[in-house]
């Protein structure tokens, strides 16, 4: 599990972001981070911290979301076979990425949702038609049950060879 010093450091970070000093973070608090504000998917990522439609996230919620990015090796130390699946399992990491695409949370990535996210990532540099054909091709390649949308299972299949553990993990220096 997460070490004491790592929790302390993240708490220190949480309080430095909490400009209102009320123990919770709002979306504005996140948007004040310049490197996050210039990330094309910045708003979608911030959204992941507010899962239930609320406007404030406390430290527990903050840690819960960040827990998805713990390296998988950490789980080797605490082999709790009967407990719930850890937040940083490969499946849960993929689910985190899936939820960035699935805007309406219906467990399917529709053509519209894919287009929306693509538009966020490319800005004004690509035409609607081109983006549309990219979305169509992507859905065609991934869709197996013919519903013109990508379910979570189909998503996992497409990415089965990708090194999710490495690419969706963040390591502490100490």
């Amino acid at each position: 599990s997460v070490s004491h010093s790592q929790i302390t450091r993240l708490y220190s970070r949480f309080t430095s972001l909490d400009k209102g000093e009320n123990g919770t973070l709002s979306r504005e608090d996140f948007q004040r981070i310049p490197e996050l504000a210039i990330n094309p998917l910045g708003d979608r990522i911030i959204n992941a911290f507010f899962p239930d439609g609320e406007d404030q996230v406390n430290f527990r919620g903050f840690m819960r979301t960040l827990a998805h990015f713990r390296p998988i090796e950490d789980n080797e130390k605490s082999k709790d076979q009967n407990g719930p699946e850890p937040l940083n399992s490969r499946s849960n990491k993929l689910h985190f990425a899936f939820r960035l695409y699935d805007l309406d949370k219906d467990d399917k990535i529709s053509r519209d949702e894919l287009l929306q996210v693509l538009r966020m990532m490319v800005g004004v540099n690509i035409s609607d038609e081109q983006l549309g054909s990219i979305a169509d091709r992507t859905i065609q390649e991934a869709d197996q049950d013919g519903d013109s949308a990508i379910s979570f299972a189909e998503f996992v299949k497409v990415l089965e060879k990708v090194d999710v553990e490495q690419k969706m993990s963040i390591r502490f220096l100490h």
Partner: protein
Amino acid sequence: MFLLLPFDSLVVNLLGISITVLFTLLLVFIIVPAIFGVSFGIRKVYMKTLLKIFQWATLRIERGAKEKNHPLYKPYVNGIIAKEPMSLEEEIKEIRRSGSGKALDTPEFELSDIFYFCRKGIETIMDDEVTKRFSAEELESWNLLSRTNYNFQYISLRLTVLWGLGVLIRYCFLLPLRIALAFTGISLLVTGTTVVGYLPNGRCKDFLSKHVHLMCYRICVRALTAIITYHDRENRPRNGGICVANHTSPIDVIILASDGYYAMVGQIHGGLMGVIQRAMVKACPHVWFERSEVKDRHLVARRLTEHAQDKSKLPILIFPEGTCINNTSVMMFKKGSFEIGATVYPVAIKYDPQFGDAFWNSSKYGMVTYLLRMMTSWAIVCSVWYLPPMTRQPEEDAVQFANRVKSAIARQGGLVDLLWDGGLKREKVKDAFKEEQQKLYSKMIVGSHEDRSRS
């Protein structure tokens, strides 16, 4: 000075008088050397003693924490998470490479691309390069100031006594002394420059003006117990040049001006600041702007150019970052001063935060609170490096020149060289940066115009 005391007791009267006399003697003992620019080296001894005490205090805390089995919080300035130094293109290519064996030269979209933006975003939420520059640097060893200690509960009786003694010394002895010195310094500056202002223009006026300024700044330096080490003084700015330095606090001005004679640039304020500014400009031509004029970039540039071109006028002192940064990094230099075409004399200022953090967090503390915090610290210790003069090369524009100067200053001072704008302290980042990212990514999924026209 005769104090009227409410008590008739002889003892109390004598006590009052002797304290006053001692105080005055102390003031004289400090001010007279300041006038002549001499130093007895007392401050250096003070600094060495303090360092020994701090080391002892830190060891004591560590020992105490180990005995009680409490983990210690150790701040890390260089970041808490491991970040990949790869570019957007390289990282996305790597993600795609691990996912499929397909040829990667053709630009296309992959569902896995989102991992890059996702992880980068979460990394910046855990630790980013910019926001931490706007709050005071965290120290690794304790300097007996409760404002900087994060392990405050793990201390022994001896440490508490030492800390209490420190509080007594700082608030009851050093603070009144420093306030008296500051008061003396500022009033001398105002009266001195006003008097010199009545003299006719000429060598005599310039000479007196220079020495009045230097003397008062030296008194102010002692008012803060600033222990400054100047390096490479042969590179000090000359007339007709522009001196640029990294900005950490308003004290920077006092530190530089006590070792050289500069023309100041800035906005006219109201209140005490305004009085000082108006008095100073009577003795020598500083460049003050009205609030309305500050927005007019052309006017500012023109006045600065006029000043710089007149070789008889003093070097201008400018802080191109435009705001106070916490002295761990140098942020973007505004290009205005680098377009003027004068010789630039870069200066690097690095504070040692152990004795008192000089950074002014203007969103947290007002000017008066800040000065009080300064005057109740142990000392302000810093190093000043005068770098060799630089001029703009024909093939570089103002922005490139500004970045070159910034890198030189960052290298010398051991500071991180950042391209981010210090204005991000208060303002939102410009959309142009996000658009840059979007453009880069677009190239990866559809290629550029040339690729498309070829196929």
